[in-house]
């Protein structure tokens, strides 16, 4: 009987110890939110030029500029 009680206590104690590590790991996990800069740039371009009046080169440059700003914003928020 005493052995059983000791075993049960030991089992519970070890279980808590194991769970404590898990809790610590969960608290240290980093949550990463990714922004699809390309899709956002495409959406922006279609909004400012819904009738395709910009040239292909102007469109490309707007996309590049938007993606550059979007990537910079991602780096800033990660810091």
């Amino acid at each position, binding site marked *: 009987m005493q052995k059983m009680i000791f075993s049960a206590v030991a089992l519970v104690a070890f279980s808590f110890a194991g769970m404590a590590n898990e809790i610590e790991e969960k608290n240290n996990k980093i949550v990463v939110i990714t922004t699809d800069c*390309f899709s956002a740039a495409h959406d*922006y*371009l279609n*909004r*400012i*030029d*819904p009738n*395709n*009046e*910009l*040239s*292909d*080169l*102007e*469109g*490309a*440059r*707007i*996309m*590049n*500029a*938007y*993606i*550059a*700003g979007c990537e*910079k914003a991602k780096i800033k928020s990660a810091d």
Partner: protein
Amino acid sequence: MIKKIFIISLFSINSIFSQSGQVFYEAISKKFPETNENKADAYITELENSKILLELKFNKTTSYFAKTNLNKSDDYNFGEEALSILIGYEELFYSLKEKSLYLNSDEILVKKPSNHNWNISSESKKIDNYLCYKATCTESYTARDGKTKERVITAWFCPELPYSFGPLEFNGLPGLILELEKNGNKVVAKSIVLSNKEIELKIPNKKTITKEQYDKKIKENAQF
């Protein structure tokens, strides 16, 4: 038309007195109407509120067009960058004799001819107390959907200031261009300074390529 030519010739006499000049322009974005499909968001509002200060310097033979130092900021401003693209901003030298533009890009110069077929109208308006006349030209281009389209560029030039220069790549009118509209966006003169002293403007001595070669490089370097 004959009356117009006479007036322009009369004001051309002024050219013997001022050798050089400097014009400060402001580029302003058009407004984007809010619709049920396109709700305005922060980026569009930023573009609508963006303004860029630009400067044109000229002497008897050459002009130089660039952003002023007042625009320089350490932070990346997407609104200003987008507006620059929409008005077609480039740092440019223009040679009146060659009728050629030189785009100043890093280590190279991009040379392209400047030949706008201006249609001058009798429509006039005052810009900062200068009487200006309307001129339009059209340019063909390949649009984003692959179709060949034409867009109209509207310029307001002042014969009283008989210098065939203007902002961006536009010039060749019988008077200084004080206002330009392209894609609904405007470039408007804010101040004009004329001088009897010659402003020295030298086209840099760099490797020169054509516009076609330059455009190809831009497309190749695009991220998509």
